[in-house]
């Protein structure tokens, strides 16, 4: 590639169940914060990449075009990228194409989601991801893909619900220190176990909430980044892979598509032993078991071994491999595309040593952010270095 790519600024709004701001206004707030943190104005930005998940949440078609002015995209080369829940990490990957290719020296990457407009519940939008002939007539809800996958994962490796619950306890606890968090709380494994079953084995506290919010980063080429800051965070590896929508034909216990995306990013970043070389990871955690499932796909844990790492405290902020020091989707909230971008922002702040109360104990130099989505079929991975 022509340019090494750096992240030079980041911003985000509050994440809440329902926000007063319109989608454009939320986008503006996050984008403005990212520009301010980079010391840039819109005139300095050459291209814009936007990310937002299903149009069905807002009931607004052409959401990329609709959001454009709040994202600083008027009159600039603009693209919207979309891979469902994987969109938040795919958005800076789209920005990376813009800058690494040598096309542009600066690129704004903005992710926005308002889930609250849809009634009776935002989950209703996900009904239409299932096969319209063979699956929807069975009364599908999005939770099924998670509950079925979680049950298979538990069965394959003999994992207990309590072990999985420890992830929800950690992430909601971490989110107490995040000023934008929706669901930061000190809870116990018993609280998770006693919460109402929604789609057993998934219980209320195993799940991240629906949320509204936006997050943004500014990318710059090496030449520009070095003029702007002494602390660029390099986007040294990106990877993305999709599997088929024939999800019932797949090994549900192991996300092979995440592994493929991870190796694509690791290879690019020159990483050979991910478990040793990655210092912190913002792993996608819309459900507590997903953090574990994804750690295995990302080669940060052996197959079936991630639960023990969580129980042993390895993934705590003061552990050997802090995972979701932000509080993750379970704690900070899950405005789909914005949640993945929040993970990019968190790794940026962590690698610059700016995360304050959330700062991990170890000297973190290499970080990873990952998202996942669509019909259990996409992995998006970014490797970042200070």
């Amino acid at each position, binding site marked *: 590639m022509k340019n090494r790519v750096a992240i030079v600024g*980041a*911003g*985000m*709004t*509050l994440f*809440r169940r*329902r*926000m*007063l*701001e319109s989608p454009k206004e*939320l986008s503006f*707030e*996050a984008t403005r914060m990212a520009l301010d*943190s980079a010391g840039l104005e819109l005139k300095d930005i050459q291209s814009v990449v936007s990310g937002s998940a299903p149009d069905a949440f807002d009931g607004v078609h052409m959401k990329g075009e609709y959001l454009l002015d709040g994202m600083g995209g008027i009159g600039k080369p603009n693209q919207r990228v979309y891979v469902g829940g994987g969109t938040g990490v795919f958005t800076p990957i789209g920005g990376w194409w813009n800058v690494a290719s040598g096309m542009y020296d600066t690129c704004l990457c903005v992710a926005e989601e308002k889930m609250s407009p849809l009634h*009776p*519940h935002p*989950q*209703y939008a996900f*009904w239409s991801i*299932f096969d*319209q*002939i*063979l699956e929807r*007539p*069975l*009364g*599908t*809800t999005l*939770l*099924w893909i998670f*509950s*079925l996958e979680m*049950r*298979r994962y538990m*069965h394959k490796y003999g994992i207990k619900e309590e072990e999985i619950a420890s992830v929800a306890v950690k992430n909601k606890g971490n989110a107490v*220190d*995040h*000023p*934008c968090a929706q669901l930061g709380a000190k809870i116990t494994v018993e609280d998770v176990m006693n919460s*109402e*079953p*929604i*789609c*057993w*084995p*998934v219980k209320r506290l195993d799940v991240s909430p629906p949320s509204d*919010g936006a997050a943004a980063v500014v990318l710059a080429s090496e030449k520009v980044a070095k003029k702007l800051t002494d602390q660029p965070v390099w986007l040294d590896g990106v990877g993305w892979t999709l599997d*088929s929508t*024939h999800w*019932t*034909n*797949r090994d*549900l216990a192991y996300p092979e598509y995440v592994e493929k995306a991870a190796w694509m990013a690791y290879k690019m970043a020159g990483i050979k032993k991910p478990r040793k070389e990655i210092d912190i990871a913002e792993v996608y955690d819309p459900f507590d078991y997903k953090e574990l499932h994804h750690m295995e796909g990302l080669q940060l844990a052996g197959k079936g071994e991630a639960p023990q790492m969580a129980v042993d405290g390895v993934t705590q902020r003061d552990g050997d491999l802090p995972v979701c020091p932000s509080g993750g989707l379970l704690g900070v909230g899950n405005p789909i595309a914005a949640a993945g971008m929040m993970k990019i*922002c968190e790794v940026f*702040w962590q690698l*610059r040593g*700016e*995360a*304050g*109360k959330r700062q991990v104990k170890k000297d973190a130099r290499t970080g990873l952010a990952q998202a996942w989505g669509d019909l259990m079929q996409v992995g998006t991975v970014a490797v970042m270095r200070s």
Partner: protein
Amino acid sequence: MKVSQKITSYPGHEITPEDIKEGKYLDAVYKFEPKYSWAAGVAISRFLAELKEGKIIARKCMNCKRILVPPRMYCEQCFRPTDEWIQIKDTGTVNTYSISHVGTDARRLKTPILVAVVDLDGATPGMGILHNLGEVEPSKIKVGMKVRAVWKSSSERQGAITDIRYFKPIGDE
């Protein structure tokens, strides 16, 4: 508490359920009621026609030897047309299952739906379909349990996945 020590304020205003009750903010409501008519496609049209006859049919790729269900006219791995129709059994194994207390729109259900991925006998191992389970206590369901399709009567069948009411444990027959 800060996202970054360099950032001191966080934009955005939350709307609480109380705000809505008190009418503190204005909104606009719209209901979108489109109607779709989907062509089932070459492979699934045949699959549905066979369901109406009380049979489950798959497609075989002679290159990778996989027997694919749901059937497709092309093999997505070999990227060539599949070769022949093969009738498979209406029995299988529970690959995974869940007890769903919520419906499509996330509202609470009075009676939970039992849902499973069933790996069908006669297809390549791991070729599952999504379906419901019935005639079984939720606490008795196990991964690895053998199950059989319970069909609607031939007069009730209309060429739909719901021509199979559900799968029930074979042990209970």
